[in-house]
């Protein structure tokens, strides 16, 4: 899908008279606040650091797509009724963004898209009210599908280098996973 979109973007770029290559690739990282709502456990939340490889280009009708492959880990503390776990997530995310000019100097990109990821919950355990280990559980993996909403703002660091910040909200379809992330991206037009 990304490949097809890249072709589309390139073709449109040519039409619009923009630079031949409008695609950019980059690295993004940022804090993410992850909330899981697993069966047999009260909801649990944790901060984590997410990393991703970003690819973006023009899309259709003045929009652009924002694709990323992400990786993150999070540690959920256990509590009474809450399972502790170490979460490792690999996934792909694609959103389409449109530019909205608010002021002359502030024109964020607002977008929405889909997320597909595989989460591995390891070191699952429960504790008693004093924080002592009660029981450990087997590692389990789940596949999540979700929708994302994001808002992005960019600064140019040069002709081919850009810095962007993006606030993104993920909602899984089964309502088991939520994530709010603040991405900082370094993008390079090659």
């Amino acid at each position, binding site marked *: 899908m990304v490949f097809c979109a890249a072709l589309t973007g390139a073709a449109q770029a040519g039409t619009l008279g923009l630079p031949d290559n409008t695609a950019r690739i980059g690295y993004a*990282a*940022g*804090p993410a606040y992850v909330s899981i709502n697993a*069966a047999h456990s009260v909801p649990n939340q944790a901060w984590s*650091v997410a*990393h991703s490889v970003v690819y973006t280009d023009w899309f259709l009708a003045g929009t652009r797509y924002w694709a990323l492959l992400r990786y993150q*880990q*999070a*540690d959920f*503390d*256990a509590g009474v009724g809450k399972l*502790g776990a*170490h979460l490792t997530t690999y996934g792909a995310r694609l959103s389409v963004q449109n530019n909205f000019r608010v002021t002359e100097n502030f024109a964020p990109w607002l977008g929405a898209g889909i997320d597909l990821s595989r989460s591995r919950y390891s*070191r699952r*355990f429960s*504790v*008693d*009210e*004093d*924080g*002592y*280990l*009660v029981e*450990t559980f087997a590692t*389990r993996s789940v596949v999540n599908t979700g929708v994302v909403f994001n808002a992005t703002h960019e*600064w140019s*660091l040069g002709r081919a280098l850009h*810095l962007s*910040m993006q606030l993104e909200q993920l909602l899984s379809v089964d309502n088991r996973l939520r994530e709010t992330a603040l991405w*900082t991206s*370094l993008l390079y037009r090659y």
Partner: protein
Amino acid sequence: MLRHAAVLFLLILITACSDGNNVPQPRPIGSIDGRIAAGIFSAGQVSIYAYQGGTRGEKLGGAELSSDGHYSVTLRATSQTVLVEIANGRYTEDASGIDTVVADGQRLTALAWYESGTVSTCAVTPLTHLATGLAAYKITQGIALRDAAVAAQQEISSAFNFDIVGTSPLLIGETTSSAGLLTDSASYGLYLAAISNLTQWISAQNGTQPHQIFNSIGFSQVLFEDVRADGKLDGIGWNQDATALMNLAYGTVALDASLYRMAIAQHLLAMTLHPRNQTGLVFKDLLLKAQTFANSRHALFGGTEMIPPLVTAPVIVPASVTPQTTVQRGTLNFEATINAIIPADTVTFTLDDLALGNALDPKHPGMLINTTQYAEGAHALQVRATDALGNHSTREFALYFDNFFVTLTSPLITNKTSYTVNGKYGLNGGVLTSLLAQGQSVIIDTDNTWHTVLTLTPGHNPVVLRLDSLGHAEQYDFTLDLDVTPPSFDTRAGHSAVRFSSSGGNSTDGKLSDTNDLQALFTPTDRTELKGIPIRRADLDGNSVPYFALKVSDPLMNGVASTAAQITVKMSYERNGLVLAPPRELKQVDTEFLIPLASETLHPDWLKSNPNDKQLIRVEAQDAAGNTQQLVLTFRVDFVVTNFALPVLTDVGADLFAATPFSQRADLNNRQFASTEYSFTNTTGKSFNIFLSDKVQHQAQNMIESMVREHRVQTKTNTEWRVGQILNALILNECPKNSGWQNVTSILNYNGTNWDAKTPPAPSLGTEFPVLSDNLPSPPAPSGWTDVLDFDNKLIPHVENLPPYLLTFDSDYIVDLNQFSRPASVKNWKLVNANNASPTTCPDVSFFQGRSAYTNLSVSGYPKNLKTLPVEQMNFSTTGFAVFDNDAGAAVVAVGGWYTIPAGHRITVKKLVTTPALTLHNDIDVADPATFTSYAPHYYDKTLTWTVERGALMSLAHDAGAANVLSMSARDTTLRAGKFVYTLQR
């Protein structure tokens, strides 16, 4: 802004190296150690439970006792107040040395504060059990749990003047290096021994074997109930329905605050004199402690003054003379026996209000009295005994001083007609002249005794004894009563109300009769012990304890009868002809004798009865003359497990299905798993048996998506015509002939006046039929050509006058009007030559034929893919139940399908079901109708459900021992809770 963003970006990169947290350590292990003591506990299992809201909670650990009653239970639990409990096992009573089994429903407990990960010490004794009861009361008064537990233990500790939890009791049979020192440990052991001795004394008061029924553990239960009711040891406790307070008794011994203090103090001292006492402590060592305890005004006893109870006072029995009107002569050594719990401290003798002095040895009190120093006649001798605790009693004996006498020593009443009587005589130094009875000489024996045989008649028999000694005579007139009539029983006042078992596990109200063999008594298992209920009609009725009630009297015949006090009544208890309780004397309550149907009055083993066992109580009354009468009371008993909180249901099979990916669904075929879990605690106080069944069918469904390609075809039939035009019907020199066939789609037919255009019949469609290919099958071959039937038999006549010829014929069927001379049908063709009389004719010809031609057509919409949703359904059954005893930490093994559930244990029952083998379909192409091409149906598993009925039928039967498991009547409890559906879907 950019600088800030860059810094943030770097921070993120740095923190990205975090490796996450580690799994915390398990809670450290701690333990609670101590000793179980009420005598030496030699076997049993100690359990430790969470203690929440004044009731027993989750079990935290358990351990077997060592042979000397010590325990050590390891725990992995939070810091909390815990309940240490022993609810089974056996121990040796300190006072009697009898090995005693802790009965069902009995327990000893203690509350302890467990600090997580540390070692705590906690003794478990009747006193700590008492503290548990007091704590339970305090909790009901709104005091916080931990505060209540601490306050209760401090209160009991202060009443006994040692730490009841932290002190390990030294049992009296044990020797120690500190022998002879009154340590807290020794005091503790002696108090426990005092309770043992007290219950042995209570056994005697009730006429039972020592500690068989009334023992330390049983008494502890009563103490617990007493203090739990109002926070005081005052003999006031709840009735069995906990609806009202009542006076408590332990058997026939009424309990109150004074009795507790005095009796325990007395028996504390008594145990210092007991041969089993190895503590090195003697009477005087404990005297002050006992006196302090007896007179304690501690809040535990309500702060009241102790009033010495009558029942604990010394009982003075003359050892050397028979009481009342006994004639004494010469020097009388009056000796008395003091039957007391502790020896009398002083025994004082008084004759006719004149002090004679104290006995030199209070243990064997006696006093020498020279009767010759006193006037002949009646005198009163008073004996007063006082013990070290101030209990005292005084008894007066009537004496008659007479040194010249003749008297009778035989009983004055008999049931023998020929009655040998004997007696004594005294001559005060004289010489016997004669000794006559009824004027006849008696036989003189040695030691101034005599005897003779008298013949009696029923009723009063006046007898005259006359003694002569050299002119000095003494006459003794008395009456011998002959009573040959036995005492009689009177049950007209009625036995108690009772419930009889009836069909279907129900009961009917009724009343006990002497014989109750037809229907067994419906006896809830929480009504099988008295547990402190006084043996009085009102109390027994108020607590629904059935009883037999009877009066005994001796009929007055010929003016002779025994009084009620002279009649001895004993009862024994038999089951199936086997004596379980030997005869023991019954005590009269008001004017009657009451026999409650309870363990304390029958035998503890009556609980081991099945409904068919014949229970028999044999009551025997004996009057003063020796006449006996028996009353047999029979019944059968059906023990019914009393109500308890029904099991809590939990669906536990979901994890199996949640953990099974759809692709692995074959693993769920023929798979046994626990679907429903029932948890309950046996709070009935007795062990019982359960039998689990499940007559329902569970259902497995596979909702399948099926796809198949279908093609339906119809055969279309077209009618084709052809005509053969006659070359030219006007040719005179040849008959009409076919110029060649040609197919036509219409033809003109002459209808007598005009030419009508005729067309073949419209095509027709045959019935639909399926084919297994997208291609159409080949149609049938066309039919053969056949003549088309004439439409109307009308032909157009032709007359051609071509002199000398005259040509006539009739024709029909032309292709168009221009080809009038080329019809397809010519008839009656005749050529007449005027020169020749013989005309020329030709045969009729018709070249108009038709046939059927066929083509196959697809029915509209076909071929197409057809999707259906068939359901595959199979039933499956419950394959069994697994019963687990959480307190024993082991599975319960069934005997004949019955599981025994011990009293107080928390049980988990799991219903096991085995899934059927559902057909596995997995054709992925069904999911894409656009590319599906198969004319054989493909199946695609979509949604699998297993619907399990949660309910079960639990039959409950009292546990009367393994031998009776199959003989007990069971009550069924249906656990209805709907269904639980496990789902697995793509």
